[in-house]
């Protein structure tokens, strides 16, 4: 099967601080992958490499099976903070990637307007980001990433700034969107439950540099709801991931301090 995203033997360092070493990762079309690991380990760097903001020092990164130096504009990126432009309305924000691709403003905005009802945002089409709640802002940010016209989505801690109730709502909503669009999704998260609930595979990142990530398949049937959190297989997996993270924390000096 064709890999949507593949790292092979990737090495990357910030100056003399190694982040990735001989790193491999393969993501199949339509897969949902969760990436979990301690703070500051370089998860966002991984996304910046995929998106083409950074280039590997060694090894290769392929998107859609083709190796390409210029990966900018090939993935939809949903940054950690929503990063909505405050001077643009909901419609104008979501239409941004289309505008950048050269679609006429009117046409781009019409397309966004036709999408808004699915996101429960049709009444907020002409509102500015400051008028929206955190959950609504994340949905606009997601729509914007989706409209990059690609089926690879990078979600960098998409729900970390939301309250618990909104977060659960959006997790279920995201599962629906994933099923509907058939996109390949990679999500960074700090929340073990979230990582398991959404993903086909959870990848636990550890070490400095990250070398041998541990991959765990989530064998919980779909469609899932937040209620699946209480299943035995779910709980077992959660224990397993926590164990991996704890081992790593005790190995690194930063973890001992904490």
């Amino acid at each position: 099967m064709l890999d949507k995203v593949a790292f092979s033997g990737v090495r990357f360092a910030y100056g003399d601080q190694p982040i990735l070493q001989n790193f491999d990762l393969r993501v199949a079309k339509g897969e949902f992958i969760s990436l979990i690991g301690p703070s500051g380990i370089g998860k966002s760097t991984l996304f910046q490499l995929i998106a083409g903001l950074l280039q590997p020092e060694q090894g290769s990164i392929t998107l859609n099976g083709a190796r390409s130096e210029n990966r900018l504009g090939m993935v939809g990126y949903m940054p950690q903070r929503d990063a909505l432009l405050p001077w643009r309305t909901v419609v104008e924000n979501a239409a941004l990637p289309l505008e950048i691709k050269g679609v006429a403003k009117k046409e781009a905005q019409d397309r966004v307007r036709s999408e808004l009802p699915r996101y429960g945002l049709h009444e907020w089409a002409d509102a500015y980001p400051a008028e929206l709640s955190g959950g609504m802002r994340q949905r606009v940010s997601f729509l914007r990433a989706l409209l990059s016209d690609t089926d690879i989505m990078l979600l960098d801690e998409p729900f970390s700034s939301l309250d618990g109730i909104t977060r659960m709502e959006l997790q279920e909503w995201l599962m629906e969107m994933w099923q509907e669009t058939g996109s390949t999704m990679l999500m960074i998260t700090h929340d073990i439950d979230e990582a398991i609930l959404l993903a086909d595979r959870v990848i636990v990142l550890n070490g400095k540099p990250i070398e041998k990530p541990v991959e765990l398949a989530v064998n919980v049937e779909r469609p899932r709801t937040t209620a699946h959190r209480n299943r035995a297989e779910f709980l077992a997996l959660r224990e397993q991931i926590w164990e991996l993270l704890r081992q790593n924390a005790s190995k690194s000096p930063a973890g001992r301090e904490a």
Partner: protein
Amino acid sequence: MAGWNRGVWFGISIALFVIVWEAVCRLLHVPPFILPPPSTVVLSLWDLRKTLLGLHLWVTLKEVILGLSASIVFGILLAFAMNMSRVVERLVYPYIVISQTIPIIALSPVFILWFGYDLSGKIAITILFTFFPIVVNTYDGLRSTDKEMLQLLKTMGANRWQIFTKLQLPSSLPHFFSGLKVAATYSVAGATIGEWLGSSEGLGYFGRRASGNFQAPALFASVLLLSILGMLLFWLVGRMEKYFTPHQRTSRKTSKEK
């Protein structure tokens, strides 16, 4: 409602100020050539309306508008050039910083020396006063672009021009307008000083001559007109800011309601 209240309070404050001023002059028998009561100032303004409003105000207004416009055009161009070229930035920026620390007023006679006693001298001094606040603020605004938003636009495949027009320019607007507000008030001061240094018309010239002849009411009349001119310019810039950055209005509104 809040705006209406504030307007009313401002009116009351002005009225009180004028009443106290008038009362002090009359009750303490302050000599009118030291401090004329407001009624005398207004009468004098009425008597001199032909020369003050018909000639001197227009001369000063012309200097202010031309000087400020030139500063806006060249200030923005220089800020853009510094933003686009590192060489220009490295070569020019130190002078911009130094200019903030030297007394610009001391340089004014030099400009009269160079540009002469006619209109161009006054415009040059007005530019001297207003140029730097505009350059500094516009450039800082262009530099202050949010890094996450910048990365996001890059992942969408935006080119430099798109990043400039869709991100840097709009995000620098609030900075530009705060610089323009400072420049608008400075512009009146610049034109006035230009007229002091050598002129045969304009409100600054008129005020200085009235001061020399101990015509306090006429002097105060010219000061009143200059103050109103400054306030009008400031208000005008404020209106422009509201027009060009509508999102700031809404964000203020919602944050107040919360």
